[in-house]
């Protein structure tokens, strides 16, 4: 399998994002240099900006891990969007009922709720996949749309505070501490201790995929299900487990949004994190540090998008995501590789 170095992929991604950004801004009729300065000032140029980038990148990193686990089993879990929405709703509703429970216990319970609800919402596509052979791409996309409707229905049917579209706020000790409590410069930023949860999830994920039998079996199933069946690895069961676990991880992204930033759930909170996480996973390709860097890149673009929004519509950043996905995917293309190596061979040949 032709594969470029993970670090090279990330660098290429950053480079392409920068160039494409400059080109788009130029075509839009704004000054590329001014917009880049604005983008920098709003993100890495200040402590507050860095905090916001971290806040935006946290759910992307977690959903990227979720998508990645599916990919290892050969599954495209496009449903992280819906799994996250349902888990966020569940966490907010459960949290509102926990009341005066001590903080640490309550937070652990709420994270467990996120995991279970995310996994449950992936159960139907998993069942459809192994029992009925329905492709998970179709079923998980449908589940995303259904999740939109379910969330709307649930909020409309009494889970939201009367006259609003948001749930009852959690008791303060149940939410995650915002980092602004420790770093004065972060005042006003939504970044919270969810970044540490994300880091723990990342480490646990690394142990799972590279140090556990289960993780290895899932990867093998993704490579060659027929050989796995002969080795008595339960292929269908591992497939189901992979999709459930993928949904469970996606649910954990609600730690950054519901528990970290808002303390309640409202329609649309965390929307887009699933799709962006999918993009991150596709670019980083099974490399956990790359996922972290690409999530930071996307977080930077999302946060920077808000700063240029007055000059260039922030939706431009989504187009950049797509451009980066394609550009990085092209590095695996045999024809592109052949072109590059032929050039290099010709350049290296004695004249």
């Amino acid at each position: 399998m032709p594969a470029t170095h993970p670090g090279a992929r990330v660098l290429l991604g950053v480079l392409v994002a920068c160039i494409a950004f400059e080109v788009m801004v130029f075509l839009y009729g704004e000054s590329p240099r001014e917009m880049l300065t604005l983008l920098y000032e709003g993100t890495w140029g200040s402590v507050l900006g860095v905090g916001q980038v971290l806040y935006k990148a946290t759910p992307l990193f977690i959903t990227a891990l979720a998508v990645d686990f599916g990919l290892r089993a050969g599954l495209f879990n496009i449903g992280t969007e819906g799994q996250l929405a349902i888990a966020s709703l569940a966490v907010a509703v459960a949290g509102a009922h926990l009341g005066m429970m001590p903080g640490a216990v309550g937070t652990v319970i709420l994270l467990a709720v996120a995991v279970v609800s995310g996994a449950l919402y992936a159960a139907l596509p998993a069942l459809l996949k192994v029992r009925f052979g329905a492709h998970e791409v179709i079923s998980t996309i449908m589940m995303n749309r259904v999740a939109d409707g379910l969330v709307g229905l649930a909020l409309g049917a009494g889970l939201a505070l009367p006259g609003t579209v948001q749930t009852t706020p959690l008791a303060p000790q149940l939410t995650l501490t915002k980092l602004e409590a420790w770093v004065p410069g972060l005042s006003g930023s939504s970044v919270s201790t969810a970044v540490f949860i994300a880091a723990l999830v990342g480490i646990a994920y690394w142990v799972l995929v590279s140090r556990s039998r289960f993780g290895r079996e899932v990867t093998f199933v993704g490579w060659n299900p027929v050989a796995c069946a002969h080795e008595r690895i339960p292929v269908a069961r591992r497939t189901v487990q992979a999709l459930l676990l993928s949904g469970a991880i996606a649910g954990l992204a609600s730690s950054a949004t519901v528990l970290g930033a808002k303390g309640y759930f409202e329609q649309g909170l965390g929307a887009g994190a699933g799709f962006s996480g999918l993009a991150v996973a596709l670019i980083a390709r099974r490399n956990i540090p790359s996922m972290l860097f690409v999530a930071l890149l996307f977080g930077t673009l999302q946060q920077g998008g808000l700063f240029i929004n007055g000059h260039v519509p922030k939706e431009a950043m989504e187009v950049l995501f797509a451009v980066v996905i394609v550009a990085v995917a092209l590095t695996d293309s045999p024809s592109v590789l052949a072109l590059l190596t032929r050039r290099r061979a010709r350049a290296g040949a004695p004249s």
Partner: protein
Amino acid sequence: MSILGSVVPETLRMSVPYAMAAAGGVLCERSGVVNIGLEGVLLTSSFASVACALATHSPVLGVVAGLVAGGAVGLLHGVLFARLRVNAIVSGVAINIAAAGGTRFLLRGWFGSSSNSPSIPALVELPGGPFTRTLLDPLFLLSVVSVVVLTLVLSRTRFGLDVRASGEDPVAAHALGVDVVRTRILAVTLGSVLCALGGVALSYDQHQFQSGMSGGRGFIALAAVILSRWRPALAVVLCLGFASLDALGNVLQNSTHLPPDALSMLPFVATLVSLFFVKRGQLAPEGLGKHAD
């Protein structure tokens, strides 16, 4: 007017985007190319037709622009997959993200609105009731003709044979002298033009472009393609079923107090339920996602 009298023409009208996306999807997939970018093609073509109709004040040019834009997206997908060997799902995801973001970007950039464009003139002003207006709509007629032509092309022509050969067994097709790469790029491009007809019909139906107006129809159409076991006529019939749920939802929304969220979920729930009836791997093109060497 009776419920039936309003649901039937509404169904026919709303089935066009579904049916054309499905017809285009059949052509792509029969050539061996998975196309989850149909949703992006619908959006792109809707936007292009509205933008061009507004810029040129010519509804006809709007239709043409929509078809060309959709075809261009298809060409890109075809080249990325067939020529450059990028994973078709990856390419499709990128196309959908770019189309969703790009249309909203341009909507705000050109029309200064994040929700909808100014309205466009109708293609033709038709007399009569809902039935006649639906049946005589040029885009509806064009869609019906395209589906018939597609069925004939797939089953009766040399190109159709090449498409099916590339989809069933790209290695054998290549050995027999079929240019698999070219056939696939052509099939995906033409398939996307068919899909684009659905996107154009969508925007002329609403007389404007709305952010995210394809609303998942491309994905449902893809499900219809699979449920039909890759047969265009059956896929179109299934799409009529999905569209009838849309139409029913609209009618119920106007006549009852059911929550709109529940009604808008109907086609998606129906798709999920229908997936229980797919028989594993049955009659899928054997070479779907594979290359000639």
